[in-house]
């Protein structure tokens, strides 16, 4: 059987984080682990095409990485006693069992998402260490100079080492809050890819795929536990939103809002999977914010057309969401749904009470409501206020089009 570059790439995607996770535990050092795993994949590229794929590619990578790390640490041992000890300890260790690898991967994820690290650092570290993305890839995805992203990663890793952030599963009392932080990082990665997927910024769709992959990994890690429903909820939420990718932007890169999307272009396979997960969550009956958001998306996915949407059910779900997550953003989204049930006037009254002036969507939603009420001059001003608050080209194109449709002038 011949081994292609894409076969190795697939193994890399699936096994990189797991291998790094095992090696961090064995050697107690993130840099040593990363370097060794990269060495192992370089070796795989050299050997596998001629020797064929080993029976357990994951085991091969971990064992090779471990041996490379031991060799390296022994070479450097004369300089650093600490490394010599790590090499000696690691040499005695047996290859890890599958359960142990899963625990290591969780340790790695929780370390990357430790609350002592800034959210931006949590996201970067998770993509780097768990996802195996390179620093230039992450920098490109977040539209930052490579140097900035490299510094962010170096600083985060230095903090883990110097402040001694433990490589450990959180204690039971902290687990809820810590898992919420992990899910938030995954959703941040997804949103970063999603929000900016328009505007011809290539490469960012990968972030959505990466977030979904991380979501699947977490679902595997939390299968049949009390935490599974929310982890599943996040996965379903991402799948249902992702299913609309093809219809989200028009040919010229302008954003197309949900109501105007061509639903025949929605990805049915993702919808079927997402809906099945939502139903599974309903059966478990342990609702949480991600599950409720997934359920809201499921109502949209179920509707054959925008006018057939069951808006009163969506308002009910937003009421439920607002009770567990009483934020102005949720209140804003609820107002959008309420406009479809009680009309734009009722929704506008709610929107005008929200303290979200810096958020472009508040102004964009306000403008839509004003337009529907025939208050066109105010709508143009509100679209303008929205434009002043977003840099996203696809969003800006849509706002500009709305202003022009109302006869307003844009800069």
């Amino acid at each position, binding site marked *: 059987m011949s081994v292609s570059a894409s076969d190795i790439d697939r193994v890399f995607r699936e096994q990189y984080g797991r291998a790094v996770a095992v090696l961090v535990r064995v050697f107690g050092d993130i840099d040593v682990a990363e370097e060794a795993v990269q060495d192992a994949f370089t070796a795989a590229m050299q050997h596998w095409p001629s020797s064929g794929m080993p029976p357990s590619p994951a085991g091969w990578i971990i064992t090779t990485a471990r041996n490379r790390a031991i060799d390296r640490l022994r070479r450097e041992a004369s300089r650093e006693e600490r490394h010599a000890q790590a090499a000696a300890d690691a040499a005695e260790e047996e290859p890890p069992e599958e359960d142990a690898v899963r625990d290591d991967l969780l340790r790695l994820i929780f370390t990357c998402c*430790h609350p*002592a690290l800034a959210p931006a650092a949590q996201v970067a570290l998770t993509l780097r260490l768990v996802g195996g993305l390179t620093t230039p890839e992450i920098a490109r995805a977040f539209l930052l100079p490579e140097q900035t992203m490299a510094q962010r990663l170096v600083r985060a890793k230095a903090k883990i080492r*110097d*402040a*001694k*952030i*433990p490589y*450990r599963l959180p204690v039971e009392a902290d687990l809820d809050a810590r898992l919420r932080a992990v899910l938030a990082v995954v959703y941040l990665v997804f949103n970063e890819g999603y929000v900016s997927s328009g505007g011809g910024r290539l490469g960012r769709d990968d972030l959505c795929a990466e977030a979904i992959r991380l979501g699947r990994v977490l679902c595997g890690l939390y299968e049949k536990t009390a935490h599974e429903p929310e982890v599943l909820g996040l996965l379903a939420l991402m799948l249902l939103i992702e299913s609309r990718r093809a219809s989200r932007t028009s040919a010229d890169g302008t954003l197309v809002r949900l109501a105007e999307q061509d639903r025949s272009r929605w990805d049915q396979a993702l919808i079927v999977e997402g809906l099945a997960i939502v139903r599974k969550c309903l059966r478990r009956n342990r609702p949480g914010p991600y599950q409720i958001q997934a359920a809201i998306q499921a109502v949209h996915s179920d509707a054959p057309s925008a006018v057939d949407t069951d808006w009163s059910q969506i308002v009910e779900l937003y009421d439920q969401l607002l009770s567990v997550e009483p934020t102005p953003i949720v209140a804003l989204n609820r107002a959008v749904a309420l406009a479809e049930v009680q009309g734009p006037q009722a929704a506008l009254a709610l929107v005008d009470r929200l303290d979200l002036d810096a958020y472009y969507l508040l102004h964009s939603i306000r403008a839509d409501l004003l337009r529907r009420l025939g208050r066109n001059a105010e709508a143009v001003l509100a679209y303008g206020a929205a434009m002043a608050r977003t840099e996203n080209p696809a969003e800006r194109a849509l706002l500009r089009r709305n202003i022009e449709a109302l006869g307003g002038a844009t800069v």
Partner: protein
Amino acid sequence: MKQYLLSVVEPEGPIPPPEFLEKVMQRVAAVEKDLKNAGGWVFAGGLHPPSTATVVRYREGEWFTTDGPFAEGKEHIGGFVVIRAPDLDAALEWARRYAQAITLPIEVRPFRWEH
């Protein structure tokens, strides 16, 4: 074991009334007792306000002495505790208890080295 500096982040402004401070000190004493029992206590101290600070600089063979804190700010270090803890999570747990007792934020910093 690592050592961490837990600093009390004090806002600018008048010192709270003695009744309030007395309750704070009682709560702090209780945390300190637990910390000592756990073998984590190293050293602690409370500081006079930044207005009592003096800054000394050495430049080109000359000493300069000036009044006041090095950097004026809305917050300053009001006091500190040096603790010994196995890792950051353990240090953060003690910081939580101090923050609750003092009702002020606590900054946790690892020592790079110690004598």
